[in-house]
């Protein structure tokens, strides 16, 4: 089992103080060059994670660290288990009948698969955005933003402020501020997806999982969501699954390459795309297969 962080033992982990690196990732090239997965504080970590659908094993022992306040992209050909992997990170995997997972998934050093951990609690700390925008059709734009709070039985003191703040955060406020009462499903695909991101953010999660958030969107809407990811990584830990390698290169600080249910390589995005250590990674990113 080759794991990114282990295969890079040669690289000296010099900067233990690299926690705040996320937002300042671009300010100094030389500092960034010294960063590696192992020097950053992991927000989440999986340890020998196996996932199954009935009899078939979809993830075959994934051990991966997800750096705090960084964007980690998960790439790989269809069926390699990347979606299953992120769904294991907030225990959405087990929602599918017959699906189960073994191994450890640590969120701030706590194993979320331990018996007494409530999956519902985990999902509030680790939010999720899906491939197809899925605003609630019975709710207005405003109510969609508040849905996570309201449906959980919470009454925000100032709901209007929450709505404005969240829609500002996903850069949707100016487009919808006059039509907050209209159905969320009436928006364009890209707007719907940003609305869904706002809905997730309203719960103030620590980690945001995005499962191919742009695959149902046109290039312009995709660009807006990518811009948004750039903004969000200042305050959230983001894991994004993508089919699109250019997208991974554009938005992610770190990239993990999955193949056939195994983690092949995990490293800084610039390393993965310019000098990968594994032949299979190179073959995939250069388009020789997948």
């Amino acid at each position, binding site marked *: 089992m080759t794991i990114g962080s282990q295969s890079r033992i040669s690289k000296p982990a010099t900067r233990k103080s690299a926690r705040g690196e996320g937002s300042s990732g671009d300010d100094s090239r030389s500092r960034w060059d010294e960063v590696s997965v192992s020097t950053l504080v992991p927000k989440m970590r999986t340890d020998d994670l196996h996932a199954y659908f009935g009899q078939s094993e979809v993830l075959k022992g994934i051990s991966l660290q997800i750096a705090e306040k960084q964007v980690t992209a998960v790439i790989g050909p269809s069926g390699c288990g990347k979606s299953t992997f992120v769904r294991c990170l*907030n225990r*959405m995997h087990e*929602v599918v009948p017959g699906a189960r997972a073994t191994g450890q998934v640590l969120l701030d050093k706590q194993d979320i698969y331990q018996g007494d951990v409530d999956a*519902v*609690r*985990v*999902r*509030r700390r680790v*939010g*999720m955005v*899906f491939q*197809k925008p*899925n*605003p*609630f*059709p*019975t709710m207005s734009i405003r109510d969609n933003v508040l*849905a*996570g709070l309201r*449906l*959980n039985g919470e009454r925000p003191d100032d709901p209007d402020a929450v709505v404005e703040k969240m829609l500002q955060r996903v850069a949707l406020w100016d487009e919808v501020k006059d039509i907050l009462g209209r*159905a969320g*499903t009436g928006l364009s695909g890209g707007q719907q997806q940003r609305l*869904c991101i706002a*809905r*997730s953010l309203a*719960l103030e999660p620590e980690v945001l999982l995005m499962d191919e958030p742009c695959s149902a969107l046109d290039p312009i809407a995709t660009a807006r969501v990518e811009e948004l990811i750039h903004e969000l990584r200042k305050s959230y830990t983001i894991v994004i699954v993508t089919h699109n390698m250019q997208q991974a290169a554009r938005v992610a600080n770190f990239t993990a390459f999955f193949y056939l249910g195994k983690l092949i390589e995990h490293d800084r995005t610039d390393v993965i795309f310019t000098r990968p250590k594994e032949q299979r990674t190179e073959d995939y990113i250069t388009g020789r297969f997948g």
Partner: protein
Amino acid sequence: MFSRYARRKFSDIFVRSACVAATVIALVPLVSVLYYVTSRGIGGINWEFFSELPKPVGEAGGGMANALAGSFKLLFLACVFGIPPGVLAGVYLAEFGDSRFGKLVRFSADVMSGVPSITVGIFVYSLVVLRAKHFSAFAGGVALGVLMLPTVTRTTEELLKLVPESLREAALGLGLPKWRATLRVMLRTAAPGIATGVMLAVARVAGETAPLLFTAFSNPFWSSGLNEPTASLPVIIYNYAVSPYEEWHRQAWAAALVLLLLVLLLNVSARLLVRNRVGVR
């Protein structure tokens, strides 16, 4: 070449006219019922009909206010007894219906919807009326509620299954417990459709006579509360129609018209509800 074309054209015209003819024949009973009931009943409808109690035999005038109110009371009770268990059973079938028990429930619901309504009447008679030793609105409501159950259950199940699974995932992803996701998102999204199904079920039982004959019975006066025999439109139509009095026949026609319009109204509003719903994408 030409003859084949001519033959094809002929069979087209033939089959098409056969279909039109069959449609017309099917419409004849419907239209004549509407026409006949309207023409015979319209004369008996006046303000008195809606506001007065029935008059004794021989006296002219009088109305059916008690039967009208009784019908609404019985339908209300039917909703109380039929909708909550029906909707919840539908939720159960949609969420856990693949189990052996679920299949059994679905099968019994299908069988139940075919059970003759008079059988349901006898069932409630022995279950409620015999024990209480008197007819009551309560018993009538139970009978109608039991009749509604299978329709409500199956409609709820089918409509919940139409709600996209992505909405459930969205709800669970927001950290909602499963029961909340089901009730607040899935059921909420399917609600307009379920309401339609419920209204159609109500419209169906609104005209039921047989199960009321020996549960709610009838009553020439106002009935108060749930414990007294209660008049209802279908039963009073039956009683008046088989009576030998001309005046009662006239009243029965008027009641039939009112009942017909009530059912029609329920059906039409159910359809409108479907058309206007925000609903399932």
